[in-house]
């Protein structure tokens, strides 16, 4: 985000420099938007704006020199011309320095926009994207030419629900409002962390988590006002946070599971684990079976659901919350698949991952239970030994004292 702050400053610098060429460039970019694949503002190398200022300086100088020549001879004319033309050099030098500085600033800006990881762009009052944006935007949003497009059109294919999109548009309009407190509005950002789905031709899609940050920036004139937006890919962060949460929940549930297993009725527990194992293997066999047509796929989903229903009922009868929770997870996934009209193999991936988790969980339960059984047997044996030691009369004496 530090880099983004630098870019804001750079943008502000560049925006403060009035350059008619850049205005024309922006206008041209807006005209041909959609046709141009480049999303980064190319560096502008302005031609030295010599002709008009030079003519403005030269014309009076030449006129004065000619008059001096006419009245006092060629020497006076030459001296007058020299004196009048002398300031032109420093003027030109200053102008070229300013041009070079502007070019360097633009080149630097171009470099920053090309190298930053976050997508950075500008949104206008009409909620259209400006022509200036960072190169990573193409990668983050998977769009070729975002410049000039409506923000709404850009977001719609990525978001699953219309409500978030509507909330985003309301939020942006609120941000544009002059009465709104920017910092108060910021907390309402519905895209602070949002799950997006990049659809592919196969009907599947890749899920990513993006974080959008918006900031209204006031220009020198009201027409220059805009919203600066930064998008960062926070998928790693989100997944790690979820994993941590899951690990903590698992840690709690392991202790809980141990207590439940200690208290459980052994024959009922063993029977339940055996039934669950058989049901899971059957589910896997159903999914492995042939048949890839839509009716076959729906039949498979229903068959797996039926197999799991019996186990769900048994798990509810026994007090195994962790098991029931995992069963509920796979049940939800399968119910979602039932509701879909068109299924593909990819859709079954969440179900199979949850089935694997269930099988592993059942194996863990069995392993813990076996340890408990061993510990119980060991403690029973120790108790017998202790009983023998404390009651020596019960033990037959081999040697009697004489």
């Amino acid at each position, binding site marked *: 985000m530090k880099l983004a702050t630098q870019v804001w400053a750079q943008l502000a610098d560049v925006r403060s420099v009035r350059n008619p060429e850049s205005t024309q460039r922006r206008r041209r970019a807006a005209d041909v938007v959609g046709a141009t694949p480049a999303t980064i503002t190319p560096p502008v190398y302005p031609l030295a704006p010599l002709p008009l200022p030079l003519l403005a300086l030269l014309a009076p100088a030449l006129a004065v020199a000619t008059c001096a020549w006419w009245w006092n001879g060629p020497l006076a004319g030459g001296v007058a011309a020299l004196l009048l033309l002398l300031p032109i050099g420093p003027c030109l030098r200053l102008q070229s320095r300013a041009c070079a500085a502007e070019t360097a600033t633009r080149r630097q800006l171009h470099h920053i926009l090309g190298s930053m990881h976050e997508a950075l762009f500008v949104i206008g009052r009409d909620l259209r994207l400006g022509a200036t944006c960072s190169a990573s935007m193409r990668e983050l949003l998977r769009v070729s030419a975002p410049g000039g497009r409506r923000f709404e059109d850009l977001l719609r294919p990525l978001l699953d629900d219309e409500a978030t999109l509507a909330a985003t548009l309301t939020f942006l309009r609120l941000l544009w409002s002059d009465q709104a407190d920017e910092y108060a509005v910021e907390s309402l950002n519905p895209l602070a962390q949002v799950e997006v789905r990049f659809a592919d031709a196969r009907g599947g899609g890749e899920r990513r988590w993006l974080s959008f940050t918006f900031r209204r920036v006031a220009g020198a004139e009201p027409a220059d006002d805009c919203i600066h937006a930064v998008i960062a890919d926070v998928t790693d962060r989100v997944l790690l946070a*979820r994993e941590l949460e899951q690990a903590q929940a698992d840690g709690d549930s392991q202790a809980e599971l141990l207590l439940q297993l200690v208290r459980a009725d052994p024959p009922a527990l063993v029977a339940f684990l055996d039934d669950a194992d058989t049901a899971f293997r059957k589910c896997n066999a159903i999914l*492995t079976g042939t048949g*890839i047509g839509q009716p076959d796929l729906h039949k498979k989903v229903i068959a797996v659901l039926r197999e799991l229903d019996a186990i769900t009922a048994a798990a509810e009868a026994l007090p195994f919350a962790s098991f029931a929770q995992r069963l509920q997870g796979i049940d939800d996934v399968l119910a979602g698949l039932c509701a879909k009209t068109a299924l593909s*193999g990819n859709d079954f991936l969440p179900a199979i991952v949850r*089935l694997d988790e269930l099988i592993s969980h059942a194996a863990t339960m069995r392993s813990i239970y076996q340890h408990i059984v061993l510990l119980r047997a060991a403690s029973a044996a120790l108790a017998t030994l202790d009983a023998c030691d404390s009651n020596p009369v019960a033990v037959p004496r081999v040697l009697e004292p004489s």
Partner: protein
Amino acid sequence: MSTEFEVGVFVNSVMHYFETAVQQPAACGIPHLALRQRPQLADYTGMVRIAGQRDGVVLFTAPRSMLCVMLMCMQDTDLSHEHLRELVGEIANTLSGDAQRNFRHQYSVSVRSQVHEGDIPLVYPAGAHPIVIPIAWRSYRARLVVCLDS
């Protein structure tokens, strides 16, 4: 990182390879678990080893006939054993590249190699069930096997 996300990355990677390199999309079959026995390997197998937060292997295994047709689709006439090994190696490279791009903070995708069945014994992480994803392309069947420890 969830298993679902990780497996999804590998599946998308293979599908994308068929779409771009072979220029004929493949279809993903219904995934299942290899519970009783190890997944059956076809003639050629490309393997990616993953180490780091989770250890495991990712395999792409395909029959010789399928790889030959793939090469023909790619306008390649050399159907030698070495070339077929190179092709599965290239698919393994693609898997490895995508894994590095997506899991750069969590994993090191260190080894990748292509093996002919029986060349190298495959070692799966103990206690993990390999997820087998059938890949259907034309009339051929390949398999993507993802086995990561928990």
